[in-house]
């Protein structure tokens, strides 16, 4: 019997995948999907469970055994979190992370949006060449910038300051931001700008009143992307903010805990989960916009 002899028509319509096999939702398929989801979740689940376990028990038995005593109060505690927030400065690091991340997201997207608008809609000499230069900068790894910028920062007393790391993150994010926003903004219909300029709107007004509102999907996608990238960054923070002190952000604080509290799993697990809370929250609430952004940057939209 050939494949063509089997009924090809799919009763469920096109909402589901077109090439779905006759083995649709067969038992092996279901089991392998469940196994994959389980494998991908277990490591994080172990961390989360352990962060609430009584510190005396955490190295005495596996966290999965702790789950057998789910309703025994002496097994569970919040003290790990209290200790990490106060003792390991995770509370201050949380505020520092916000101070670093929000401007490091807003500034590059603003600067990039203005530049992308000019590259797309204001004719000027050297436009094509400069745009190619900006895109070409995508190939420069940020490691190339570390030594010279650190030297400048030491001289200009920008080392260890929030302003310093904002500017660094801004510049490192710019090539990709300009590239992605240009791809979006240059596709807006020309008529929009023509009627705006007949109405006497300046470029600034056209940008603020027409381009920004229409670009919300692209701006939103890049915002999420940059936010997660800056929030999770360790390298740029270690180099420009330094290894510790008043200004350390959450990844730096967690990194230092690995060094100083390597064996104290009750604190490490709680600290790690604290650093993950914001990204998880952002990710789970804005997953669709995030996916759209990833796809815009990688495949034809």
């Amino acid at each position: 019997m050939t494949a063509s002899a089997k009924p090809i028509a799919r009763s469920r319509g096109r909402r589901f995948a077109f090439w779905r096999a006759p083995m649709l939702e067969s038992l092996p398929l279901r089991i392998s999907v469940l196994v994959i989801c389980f494998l991908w979740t277990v490591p994080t689940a172990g961390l989360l469970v352990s962060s609430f376990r009584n510190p005396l028990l955490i190295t005495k038995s596996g966290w999965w055994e702790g789950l057998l005593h789910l309703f025994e109060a002496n097994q569970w505690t919040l003290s790990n979190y209290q200790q990490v927030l106060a003792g390991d400065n995770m509370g201050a690091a949380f505020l520092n992370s916000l101070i670093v991340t929000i401007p490091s997201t807003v500034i590059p997207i603003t600067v990039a949006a203005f530049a992308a608008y000019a590259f797309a809609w204001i004719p000027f000499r050297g436009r094509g060449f400069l745009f190619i230069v900006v895109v070409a900068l995508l190939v420069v790894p940020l490691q190339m910038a570390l030594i010279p910028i650190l030297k400048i920062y030491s001289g200009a007393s920008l080392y260890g300051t929030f302003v310093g790391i904002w500017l660094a993150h801004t510049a490192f994010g710019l090539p990709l931001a300009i590239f992605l926003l240009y791809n979006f903004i240059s596709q807006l219909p020309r008529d929009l700008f023509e009627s705006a300029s007949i109405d006497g709107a300046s470029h600034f007004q056209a940008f603020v009143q027409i381009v920004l509102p229409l670009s919300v999907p692209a701006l939103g996608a890049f915002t999420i992307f940059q936010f997660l990238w800056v929030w999770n960054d360790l390298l740029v923070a270690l180099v420009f903010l330094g290894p510790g002190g008043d200004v350390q952000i959450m990844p730096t604080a967690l990194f230092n805990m690995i060094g100083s509290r390597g064996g104290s799993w009750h604190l490490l697990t709680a600290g790690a989960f604290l650093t993950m809370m914001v990204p998880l929250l952002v990710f789970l609430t804005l997953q669709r916009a995030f996916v759209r952004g990833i796809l815009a940057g990688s495949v034809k939209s």
Partner: protein
Amino acid sequence: MAPARTHESGLSRFLPIAVLIGLLAAAAGVRILIEPHGGQNLLASFYDLIGNPAGAEALRNGQGDQFLAKLLLAAIALFVGVGGIWLLFTGASTLVERFPPKFRDRILPWVFIGPALLLLGIYLVYPAVATIIGSFQDQKGAFTLANWSSLATGPFLEILRNNAIWLVAATAGSVGLGLLVAALFDRIKREALAKTFVFVPYALSLVGATVIWSFVYAWQPASQPQFGLLNAIWTAFGGEPVPWSTKFPINIPAEILIMIWLQTGFAMVVLSAAIKGVSTEVIEAARLDGANERQLFFGVIVPIIRGSIITVATTIGIATLKIFDIVMSMSGGRNHDDVVAVRMFTEMFQFFNDGRAAALATVLFIAVLPVMVINLRNFRRQQAM
């Protein structure tokens, strides 16, 4: 548009003054942000002003309302960082628009792209050139090839080997698994939910992911209970407990697995979208020709989504070449698992050998260059499709 214009012209009379005041405030904010203990000092001055010298004294000694000072600093930071950049663009545009049209049209584009070009020049173009030059200089600035020739010696060959292993294993692993997961999940009803489970790790920091997996890899002597998941399973099957994350050579695949765990979700999302974009006619034609499911997938679908596979592979490949956080948090590269980016950091901050660090950065640049070119070419081809 027209009514908005009249409204604008009424507003525009005091807009420049408002912008100027805003910019001055932002400049003052930057001063506070750059100054060490700026937040504490500002709050202390305020306490002095309202007659609370004790509170001010405590703050200056690093005690008292430190958290309040931090909050104050955060508020200033948000005003300066978020508001300042908008004031800057608004102010410059408003100013330039008052110029005679001839000048205005010539200057305005530079108001829009100027800040971007300035930042890119200072933070990428100049440093890239300076780093390449620096890789040919010794500590005193004289010309030398020593930084480069030293990369051909034992420990550095090991580092380059590790980067090569990372590049191949992490990229192939993430793309392969991503493709598999995308294909499998494509056939189930609750696809979106299932994908979320695999995609979530992508949002986590590499440092956090390293802690998660260090806990999975945790090792105890055989006499003790194994609370690390992997060793618990391993010993249950009769194995001796293995220090997965610290013992060479098993530590390298153990670290790479963290990256694969993180990146598979990204590969899955992109490839899944690509698979859904393959046209129904092509599939049905292949089925009519008698292709079985495997032939259909590898013979028809994979070639069609080739562009997306290249995109995913190059994106993950670049991230893998620059890998830093995982190795840095796991061992600092001390267990024969060192990689270029970690070693560069060590050279900078432990050995203070900027010349060699510059050479290592340039190695990364050279390695990333061809991968990025493939990526951009592929992107353009896809756009043209």
